[in-house]
């Protein structure tokens, strides 16, 4: 017998989605902050869409700048492809897409797969990589488009972002459906690996650039800068609507299958290992460290997210041929992305076990230090992979550039760590991260976190990019010191707050939801 949810139409699904959004909106802790965050995001979007066009670059009369602009213009179609790849990898990484209500909360409600699909589409923009890449595309388009053509070109960009997001969502649901079949996990891994190998092979053969330029995205990008832009917008909106409609089918298929990978991990067997006996440091810390690391790597969502973040931006840098000056922004962004997987609510790794953890006779200092170390490990590993892949692409940089990259990397790591450990203690949340669709904090908070982290790390990256053009190699490390000292002080302050018993109890009880 078919259930009533199967017969629900799109109108019902849209209405249910609105109910869920309203429910989530009512549970926002700081409504005023959310409104301010949304206004800032919109203002930034407008700023990126219009700001670069207002700069009169021709007045600078720089051949190098002209060459850079010509390169950007030539690669605009490739940047459009990048948005699509991001949409696909994001939805694949998050098990089809984010959820408006967690699985356990949603279990008692008749929520149809179409509603889940629409919810995931609505939540897709609340993603650091999505925001950064969209802003980047808007900014590049503004830089290379004549002022009188700018509105049309930017509308094409927005229509493309919508179409790519919907198409990515549909592909993400499809991948999730395959993943949930017998041997599906292996199939998805093999296909993803093959795609990466093919792309790498094409790049090495020198065929990737021409192939990307031959894709229809180049037509979209070029048409946007002509009087024909309404045609492009119309085509893209049709694609968007078709992708939204078609995406519901793989969503229903995927959500109707048991989540094999999660179930396998949840019933995973890990044979007993002897207690660690470190050469230096305390055995207590080593044991806590092992437990915390296990909590990260035994989570499907976190493991998948760390791999995607570690390899994705680095491969883009490798394939797109990003120079060191552009690469400087990536470690901060990838470290922020890794922190957004769980670091922004670092104590949620323990879930309801937080109360039991707190009854263990171990000093609160050790608990804080180990948790901060695990967050730092993840951010360092992910951003380090990006730096290494950029090194493969560009070779060893000049000394001053190398010093700037390393200084920038160290600064953003400490910055991100200090910020997220402060948030973890100031605003803990009770969440269940067993599903890759779950987020470590409510969506509004996640959007704010993503915005703040990307802003801070991007500005830092831009600052060190500027330092890389100076002739003095000692300047970047010297100027990194005040950054590190400031963030170090913030980290110490967060630790001090954790050490206060009443504050710690508040965090523990909130995370464990008791």
């Amino acid at each position: 017998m078919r259930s009533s949810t199967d017969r629900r139409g799109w109108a019902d699904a849209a209405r249910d989605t609105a109910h869920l959004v309203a429910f989530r909106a009512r549970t926002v802790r700081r409504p005023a902050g959310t409104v301010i965050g949304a206004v800032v995001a919109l203002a930034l979007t407008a700023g990126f869409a219009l700001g670069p066009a207002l700069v009169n670059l021709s007045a600078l009369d720089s051949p190098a700048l002209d060459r850079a602009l010509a390169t950007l213009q030539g690669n605009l179609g490739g940047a459009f492809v990048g948005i699509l790849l991001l949409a696909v990898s994001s939805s694949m990484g998050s098990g089809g897409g984010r959820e408006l209500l967690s699985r356990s909360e949603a279990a008692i409600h008749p929520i149809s797969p179409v509603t889940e699909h629409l919810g995931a589409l609505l939540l897709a923009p609340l993603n650091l990589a999505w925001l950064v890449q969209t802003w980047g595309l808007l900014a590049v388009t503004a830089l290379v488009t004549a002022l009188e053509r700018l509105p049309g070109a930017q509308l094409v960009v927005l229509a493309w972002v919508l179409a790519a997001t919907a198409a990515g969502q549909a592909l993400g649901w499809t991948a999730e459906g395959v993943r949930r079949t017998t041997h599906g996990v292996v199939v998805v891994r093999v296909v993803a690996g093959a795609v990466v190998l093919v792309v790498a092979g094409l790049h090495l053969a020198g065929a990737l650039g021409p192939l990307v330029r031959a894709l229809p995205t180049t037509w979209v990008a070029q048409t946007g800068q002509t009087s024909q832009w309404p045609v492009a917008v119309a085509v893209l909106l049709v694609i968007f609507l078709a992708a939204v409609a078609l995406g519901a089918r793989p969503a229903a298929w995927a959500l109707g299958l048991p989540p094999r990978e999660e179930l396998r991990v949840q019933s995973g067997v890990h044979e007993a290992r002897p207690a660690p006996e470190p050469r230096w440091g305390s055995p207590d810390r080593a044991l806590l460290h092992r437990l915390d690391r296990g909590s990260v790597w035994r989570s499907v969502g976190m493991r998948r997210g760390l791999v995607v973040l570690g390899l994705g931006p680095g491969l883009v840098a490798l394939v797109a041929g990003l120079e060191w000056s552009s690469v400087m922004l990536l470690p901060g962004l990838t470290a922020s992305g890794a922190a957004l997987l769980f670091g922004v609510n670092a104590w949620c790794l323990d879930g309801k076990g937080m109360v039991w953890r707190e009854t263990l006779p171990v000093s609160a200092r050790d608990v804080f230090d180990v948790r901060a170390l695990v967050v730092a490990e993840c951010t360092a590993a992910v951003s380090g992979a990006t730096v290494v892949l950029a090194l493969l692409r560009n070779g060893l940089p000049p000394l001053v550039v190398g010093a700037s990259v390393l200084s920038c990397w160290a600064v953003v790591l400490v910055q991100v760590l200090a910020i997220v450990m402060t948030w973890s203690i100031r605003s803990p949340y009770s969440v269940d991260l067993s599903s890759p669709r779950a987020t470590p904090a409510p969506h509004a908070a996640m959007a704010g976190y993503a915005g703040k982290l990307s802003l801070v790390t991007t500005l830092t990256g831009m600052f060190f990019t500027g330092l890389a053009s100076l002739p003095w190699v000692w300047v970047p490390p010297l100027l990194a010191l005040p950054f590190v000292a400031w963030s170090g002080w913030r980290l110490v302050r967060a630790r001090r707050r954790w050490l206060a018993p009443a504050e710690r109890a508040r965090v523990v009880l909130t995370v464990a939801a008791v």
Partner: protein
Amino acid sequence: MTPTPAVVVRDLHVRFGDVEAVSGVDLVAASGRATALLGRNGAGKSTTMKVLAGVVPPTAGEVTVAGIDAASDALGVKRVVGYCPDVGGLVPRATPWEHLQLSARLRRMDHWEERGRDLLERFELGDVAHRVVGGFSHGMSRRLSVVLAALHEPAVLLLDEPFDGVDPLGVEATLEVVADARARGACVLLSTHLRDLALEACGDAVVLRGGNRVAAMDAADLTGEAYRALLD
């Protein structure tokens, strides 16, 4: 001879922001005895247990656990207490054996493995000792929480709703753990809504209402009518 008090609580107050979860509880529990903490939802039982476990600091009042002041030495309290929290209490992506290993090592226990294995078998968790607990049923999680509380043979055993969702075999095993603890001279505090099981496990009973203690008596004297009257 009067048994030595292992838990002494005088005029305990616990506030969470504007909410006063516990308002003036007095409680004395002796070594070698099991005391039932009874009361309706929100009576302050679980919060009192968390203070005794060193998880929540008292806002005001005096709390001594095995001679240790809970306000000034929470770490010391944690060393002597075994605590089964009312909800959850397990790290979702760790195995039972990893939970036991961590608990034992942090309490400097040598040769804990045999006792750990024995407890897991008694609670019928031996087969899943190396499986992550995220996939456990509610009853399995509760049973493992009792095992973790009992592993190090604590001087004070705090069991908060240990029978909640547990099958009869698990209930029996929990009652055995309580009896063992009493036999070796430990103080047991057991919080539950199930009066019959409380009476079976405990010799003393304390009833809380609205964050206050309203009665302390021999468990045998706590008839159904008397208990009902104390709750209203």
